[in-house]
């Protein structure tokens, strides 16, 4: 693997793209642009069809160029212009669209292995701004395309990309509900549990190959951990009562969760490495669905202590409690954004269908992200905070969808029916 990056070229590209962006922003006078809003910083890139130099391109499910372009579109950071080859015509088209650089690449498939070469080329000078080569087992060609997509996001925007992230979710199967995982774009889905019991609310714990979920496999709902590299599952710890709705914070390596171990559904905090659980709530009502602020200082959760399920925020030790929701009938499933600036949640506004909203952590500036599209539940943030994954019944059966953090471009990821409770991995 080699990498050639010309810093001066990237700076030039960035400076020009910022200029273009500045003009865009100036014209959009009525729109308040937040850092998460898709379309706010869109960079135009040309794309010349990747060539298969050796082997049968049909022997891989998707050509790497297709995977890459899909990633770039999905990221919301790029607008891609296609061309079969780089010539005077395509050059003019790329430049008309505001592109300063284009992508080209080739790949080979031989003896069950792949090699992939990707380049970002300065349109005017023809020099490579970024060049990367990958090789490995053929099944990992798709992953290599994702890696290059993330490399482009990192080099051109200075932020990590999400093309290598994964989604854990619940899949209804004969005999029970099982945990499955898939790539963030819906590819590579596979089942993690097969105990024919009820398995719920999966979350990733730090690494992309460790999943924590609630399972009835041992009778009462308990936490189990699936290690996908070893394809094993084991009970994480045993607790009286019903244990569910875990949420992990990597800063302190702690989970918060709901348990009825003391009789009533309360919120508890516990180090993953082991140790005791600290009880954080002390009210007769239902307390559940806790979600960490990204720095681990605060917790948002659901409580019906004042009659209806509402959102509350408390400090990590349970102190400084305040209610942040008031207007709608029923609030649930809060999820604090990775940047800490918004909380996504579901609410009922008359009717029986949930919609997804976001607010600031003090309950201000509510934005409704879904409407008139079935019931929309279980929002979970992408690690870069630019997207939300969620369950929707808009097509009839529960399926996993993804949308921009501003509700734009909803896109369906599953098609088998009975898919719910999606949770996005870390990078």
């Amino acid at each position, binding site marked *: 693997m080699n990498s050639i990056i010309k810093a001066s070229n990237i700076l030039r590209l960035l400076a020009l793209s910022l200029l273009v962006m500045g003009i865009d922003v100036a014209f959009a006078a009525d729109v308040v642009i937040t850092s998460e809003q898709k379309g706010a910083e869109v960079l135009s890139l040309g794309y010349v069809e990747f060539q298969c130099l050796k082997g049968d391109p049909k022997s891989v499910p998707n050509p790497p160029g297709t995977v890459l372009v899909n990633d770039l579109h999905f990221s919301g950071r790029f607008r891609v212009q296609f061309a079969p080859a780089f010539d005077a015509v395509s050059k003019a088209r790329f430049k008309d669209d505001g592109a300063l650089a284009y992508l080209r690449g080739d790949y080979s498939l031989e003896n069950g292995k792949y090699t992939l070469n990707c380049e970002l080329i300065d349109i005017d000078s023809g020099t490579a701004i970024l060049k990367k080569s990958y090789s490995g087992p053929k099944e990992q060609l798709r992953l290599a395309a994702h890696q290059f997509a993330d490399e482009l996001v990192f080099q051109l925007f200075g932020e990590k990309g999400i093309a290598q992230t994964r989604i854990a979710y619940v899949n209804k199967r004969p005999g029970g*509900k099982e945990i499955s995982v898939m790539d963030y774009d819906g590819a590579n889905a596979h089942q993690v549990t097969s105990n024919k019991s*009820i398995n*719920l*609310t999966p979350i990733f714990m730090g690494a992309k190959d460790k999943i924590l979920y609630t399972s*009835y496999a041992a*009778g*009462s*709902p308990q936490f189990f951990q699936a290690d996908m590299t070893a394809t094993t599952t084991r009970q994480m710890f045993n607790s009286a*009562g*019903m244990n*569910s*709705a875990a949420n992990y914070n990597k800063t302190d390596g702690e989970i918060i969760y*709901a348990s*009825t171990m003391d*009789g009533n*559904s309360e919120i508890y905090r516990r180090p993953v490495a082991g140790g005791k659980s600290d009880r954080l709530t002390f009210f007769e009502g*239902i*307390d*559940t*669905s806790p979600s960490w602020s990204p720095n681990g200082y605060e917790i948002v959760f*659901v409580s*019906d202590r004042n009659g209806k*399920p509402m959102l509350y925020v408390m400090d990590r030790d349970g102190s400084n409690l305040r209610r942040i929701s008031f207007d709608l009938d*029923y609030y*649930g*499933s809060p999820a604090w954004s990775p940047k800490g600036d918004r909380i996504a949640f*579901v609410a*009922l506004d008359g009717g*029986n269908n*949930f919609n997804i909203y976001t607010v600031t952590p003090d309950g201000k500036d509510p934005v409704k992200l879904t409407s008139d599209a079935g019931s929309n*539940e*279980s929002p979970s943030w992408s690690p870069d905070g630019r997207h939300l994954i969620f369950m929707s019944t808009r097509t009839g059966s529960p399926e996993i969808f993804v949308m921009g953090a501003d509700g734009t471009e909803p896109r369906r990821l599953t098609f088998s029916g009975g898919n*719910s*409770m999606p949770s996005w991995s870390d990078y």
Partner: protein
Amino acid sequence: MKLKYWASLGFASTLFFACSKKPPVVPPPEPTPPKVVVETPPAPPPPPDTMGEGRRRLQARVTETFKTVYFDYDKSALTSEGQSICEGIGALMKEVPSLTVQIQGNADDRGTNEYNLALGDRRAKAVQSYLTTYGIAASRLSTISYGEEKPAAEGQDDAAWSKNRRDDFSPSF
């Protein structure tokens, strides 16, 4: 009871071999003894008599008494109908000290899954609390919640929802 079952099976197989010895005059066909046993059992083994008459009668009373308790939307308080079912359960459990029960709380699917798990738990505990107040030892009453994960009826209407907001009972004695 199990002993009895095996004993009767043993008796049946003795009978069978006794019979199969009968026609040895015929030239020996291909020996297929185990298959014959499977295909033509001499007599259906008598249903395992795991219950005496008294037990059977008790089972009938248990089935009749442990009726599903239904709840109002987002409520875990017992309705008057629920209370009368619980009263019957309490009376029977007092009468039959060996009777224990797992109370299984459920919710319709109109809330979030996590909240409904807790709501099902409250519904199970509402019955548990009624019964402990009635004088049944807590050790005889376990609870579990399935939230909205085990619906009794599928559908997005009042008919289905009202069937799903419930406590089921799994009694044993």
